[in-house]
């Protein structure tokens, strides 16, 4: 029994310790952000790797989710005779929650794990040490562009996910279920408010981008320099990233609604 409590205490301390290290790591990234050279080339390359390469999965998933929403929404609303509001239901669900959260989860899995693996394998092959020996700050060269790109990419991907979802919902509602296209669109437009819904959605996407960017780079940077270490870094990025996104989602939703 006593061992269990000791273990728990140890875990708690280590959690706080990790959090502190993450905070310090974040400060280093920030410091590097504002130090020349700006490394725009690396930033653009990362935008490509994290953004452009995620396009397919984001757009396809977005459309699929929109279609499911259209289907489920219609079937439920029809029971109350409220199927005219399908546009509003699909739109609000996507914009407020599903867009930013699902995009974040998908991005964590694809781009986040790729980043962690890349940085982790650079650690394992001593490339980062090589950079240090050449008097080049590895955080500045490798980590900051990746983290910055992740933050920049999230709102864009989230918006694309939502638009594809709206289209998917439209395709099902209007194309399949026979709703009037104009009704769908006007129901959508009247229900969605920029400040409450769209702005909150973009803010969430941005915050999730920060989370994923930090977690994936931190995990990669601090991974043990073995292939096992790299793999652990990748999986923990996905796990911790996903859980953090969901927890933060609650808090942002609660606070933004105020």
């Amino acid at each position, binding site marked *: 029994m006593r061992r269990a409590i000791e273990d728990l205490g140890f875990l708690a301390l280590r959690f706080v310790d990790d959090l502190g290290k993450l905070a310090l790591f974040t400060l280093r990234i920030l410091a590097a952000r504002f130090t020349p050279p700006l490394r725009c*080339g690396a930033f*653009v390359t990362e*935008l490509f790797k994290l953004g452009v390469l995620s396009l397919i999965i984001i757009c396809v998933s977005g459309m699929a989710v929109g279609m499911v929403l259209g289907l489920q929404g219609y079937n439920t609303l029809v029971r109350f005779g409220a199927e005219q509001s399908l546009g509003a239901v699909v739109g609000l669900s996507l914009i407020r929650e599903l867009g930013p959260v699902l995009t974040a989860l998908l991005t964590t899995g694809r781009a986040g794990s790729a980043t962690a693996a890349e940085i982790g394998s650079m650690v394992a092959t001593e490339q980062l040490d090589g950079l240090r020996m050449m008097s080049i700050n590895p955080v500045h060269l490798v980590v900051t562009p990746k983290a910055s790109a992740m933050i920049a990419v999230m*709102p864009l991907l989230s*918006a694309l996910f939502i*638009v594809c979802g709206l289209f998917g919902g439209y395709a099902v509602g209007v194309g399949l279920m026979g709703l009037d296209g104009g009704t769908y669109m006007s129901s959508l437009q*009247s229900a969605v408010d*920029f400040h409450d819904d*769209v702005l909150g959605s973009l803010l969430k996407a941005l915050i999730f981008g920060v989370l994923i960017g930090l977690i994936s780079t931190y995990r990669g940077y601090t991974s043990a320099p073995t292939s096992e270490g790299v793999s652990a870094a990748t999986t923990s990025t996905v796990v911790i990233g996903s859980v953090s996104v969901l927890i933060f989602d609650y808090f942002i939703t609660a606070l933004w609604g105020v």
Partner: protein
Amino acid sequence: MTRSPLRDLLVGLFVVVGLCAIAYLSFSVGGLSYSGPGGLTIYAAFDQTGGLKPRAPVVISGVKVGQVTSIALDPSFRARVAMDLDGRLKLPTDTTASIVTAGILGDRYVSLQLGGDDKVLASGDSITFTESAIILESLIGKFMYGRTGGSSGGESGGGGADETQKKGS
């Protein structure tokens, strides 16, 4: 990390498309509009706002001309609604402001009916003629109270007459 022009092009396209998506969501779907020149601050006091929220539109003949900026209690416990309207508007001093609902269960907004006076409201003035929001429950309550008073003899007489102002839709 070899920079190929194709990659740069794709990144550029990606960013442009993403921004367009954001713009579409903000303007077309979300209804963000370039608020026209504001500047005309007008106040109106209501007995009942019925759930009117700040940033609700202020409308003349169905066209948005401004928005509600704040709602507060004035010394006589009426609701004082502050509105920021298009500065080019010339509103006669006998203009009426009413709080209406979009549809039956929609959001509340303020609708202005122009009067005919020669004198025009200036920034900081108040509208004298106001119509408060209609609360659906009290309407039903009045209706039921009227019915039970006449026909079923009083047991549920108190129940329907809910004059307590509940929040609207």
